[in-house]
């Protein structure tokens, strides 16, 4: 069962790399925000998988709960901040 958790965590971090492409090369600021939100929601699963691999789930559950809360607050604050900006879509040439 440890092997299942290990390979699931590896696959999940691979998917986080795929989402990181959108966070780095996104045409607009809000595309980057979508990528960051997707990475954050994968991370709270990955933290509990790490806790199951290390046999310390009772500690890592609290970290995962705090990370989910922090991710939500960060995305909400960034969305509220960029709502005030005009001309947000003029960032670089669109490919």
């Amino acid at each position, binding site marked *: 069962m440890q092997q*299942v958790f290990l390979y699931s965590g590896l696959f999940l971090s691979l998917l986080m790399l795929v989402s990181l492409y959108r966070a780095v090369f996104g045409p607009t600021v*809000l*595309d980057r925000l979508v990528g960051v939100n997707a990475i954050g929601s994968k991370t709270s*699963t990955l933290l*509990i998988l790490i806790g199951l691999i290390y046999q310390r789930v*009772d500690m890592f*559950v609290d970290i995962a709960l705090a990370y989910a809360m922090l991710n*939500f607050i960060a995305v909400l604050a960034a*969305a509220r901040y960029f709502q005030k900006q005009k001309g947000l879509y003029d960032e670089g040439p669109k490919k």
Partner: protein
Amino acid sequence: MNIIATVLLIIGLVFFTGGAVGIIRFPDFYSRLHPAGKLDTAGLVTTMGALALYTASPFTLTTLITAVKIILIVVFVFITSPTATHAIIDAGVRAGLPPWRKEPEADS
């Protein structure tokens, strides 16, 4: 119990894969939010359900408390993930981001 947890974990990873592919492949910001908001929540519910089942499998009080905490994360994400998606869409609409339309010539 191990078999049920493994199957649920694989289903959740399939959901996460769909979300990542949708974020990469969709043409527009508004359409990219559709897999990002929905499939990530679905994948997180199934994977967290699998991990909660595996955690509570020797049924004592401490493992039950840990499993209840994992379910609490799921409830929290169910409330906050649509709120975050709605906030991002609201920022896009108010900044005047035009939605994607189908071009006559194959441009992008």
